């Protein structure tokens, strides 16, 4: 019996397109994972409620709007409040280099900027989730 890794691909905030999120969702699916996709304009509360109900191992946050410094820590904290501090939180999208340490401080496992390879994202995710086992 091998448990299938479940990932929530989340798009909080006001981003107007979700191409990147869809590409990542597909890569996860092609790697044999189950990917819950909730669409654009989600509040942190909605993202966390979905993560709890879907009992995911990973929340992959895609964000382009520049509001990562507010939205991402809020999601991490809400996950902890709901007893799901164990969830692996990843961020992808446009995040200035200098903002990355603060996000990692807040509990993000890794920030994948533009040009990240899909194989790398999938491999990192798998290693973290399986490693926790």
């Amino acid at each position, binding site marked *: 019996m091998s448990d*299938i890794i479940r990932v929530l691909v989340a798009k909080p905030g006001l981003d107007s397109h979700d191409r990147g999120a869809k590409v990542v969702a597909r890569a996860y699916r092609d790697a*044999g994972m*189950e990917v819950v*996709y*909730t669409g654009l304009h989600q509040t942190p509360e909605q993202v966390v*409620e*979905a993560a709890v109900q879907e009992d995911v191992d990973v929340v992959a946050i895609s964000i382009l709007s520049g509001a990562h410094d507010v939205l991402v820590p809020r999601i991490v904290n809400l996950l902890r409040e709901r007893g799901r501090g164990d969830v692996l939180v990843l961020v992808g999208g446009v995040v200035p280099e200098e903002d990355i340490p603060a996000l990692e401080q807040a509990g993000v496992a890794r920030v994948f900027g533009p040009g990240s390879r899909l194989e790398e994202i999938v491999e990192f995710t798998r290693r973290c989730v399986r490693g926790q086992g």
Partner: protein
Amino acid sequence: MDLIPRLLAGESPALARAITLVENQHPDARELVARLYPHTGQARVIGITGPPGVGKSTLTDQLAVRFRQEGMPVGVVAVDPTSPFTGGAILGDRLRMTRAAGDPGVFIRSLATRGQLGGLSRATGDVIKLMDAAGRRLILLETVGTGQAEIDVMNYAHTTVVVAAPGLGDEIQAIKAGIMEIGDVFVVNKADREGADRTVAELEMMLDMAPDRGGDAWKPRVLRTVARDGTGVDEVLREVKAHWGHLEQAGRLQVWRRRQAEFELAGMVRSLAAARLLEWAHQTGVWAEVRDRVVERSLDPCAGAELLLREYREAFGRRAAKSPGTAGRRGEV
């Protein structure tokens, strides 16, 4: 098993984790379901089925919101297909459930089929039980986009809603050939589009041609909706409730419960009996013997299966007669 009191108290994280255990066939899952089973049987289950792209998720969303307005705790089980090539899945039903998804009073769980045919996931029956035990009094069960053969939903749902849309072309043929008989309520969604009248007429004609099931039998109607903006959804709600009213008369609910229990029981017997027989046959080497005879063409596969069954029965009959105390010990045969 400290999940159980938390689940019975309706806590979402506990319900979510319990569903995962059941989906993954975790060793604890059987006991979990067994202990919760006495707390089930309270919920109403509405099945939503139909071809891909007709608006099942959007209609489910609209119905969920309306039941919430009536104060009912709602559960949604939304099934999407697993890729047969990678084993992965994109579960996108939440994308169309934006109204209900914002409300913690609606517990939505997306399931992948994980290789199961029939339009549902193998875990569906147990997932419904868990939601039921967690106090979700109304459960909406949305199948994968169905063609002709995906009729399993009728075995879990008190009321099955078959959704169609104009302009489907051959898909309407599929409905006519396959899932027509399982619908208690028919909905032509996207009814503002061209061709809606024709789709409604086609479905009504099929329903008229169905054999008459007697004077007081339920007569399914065809309704129109535009789920995107909510048009016609109240009428669907009324029709579903009318169907419940019908089900509650003349002992029909008891008949339904018996049929549902038989479905689950028969499914369990099939899988358990097959598993036991195969395990025994492999352990004793009988499997390899019979297999080789099938390879040599001295037995056909059906005769081989019958032989296996006979040997299994004899082995256990003999063992039980000789020394009942050792029954079940491995390698005894």
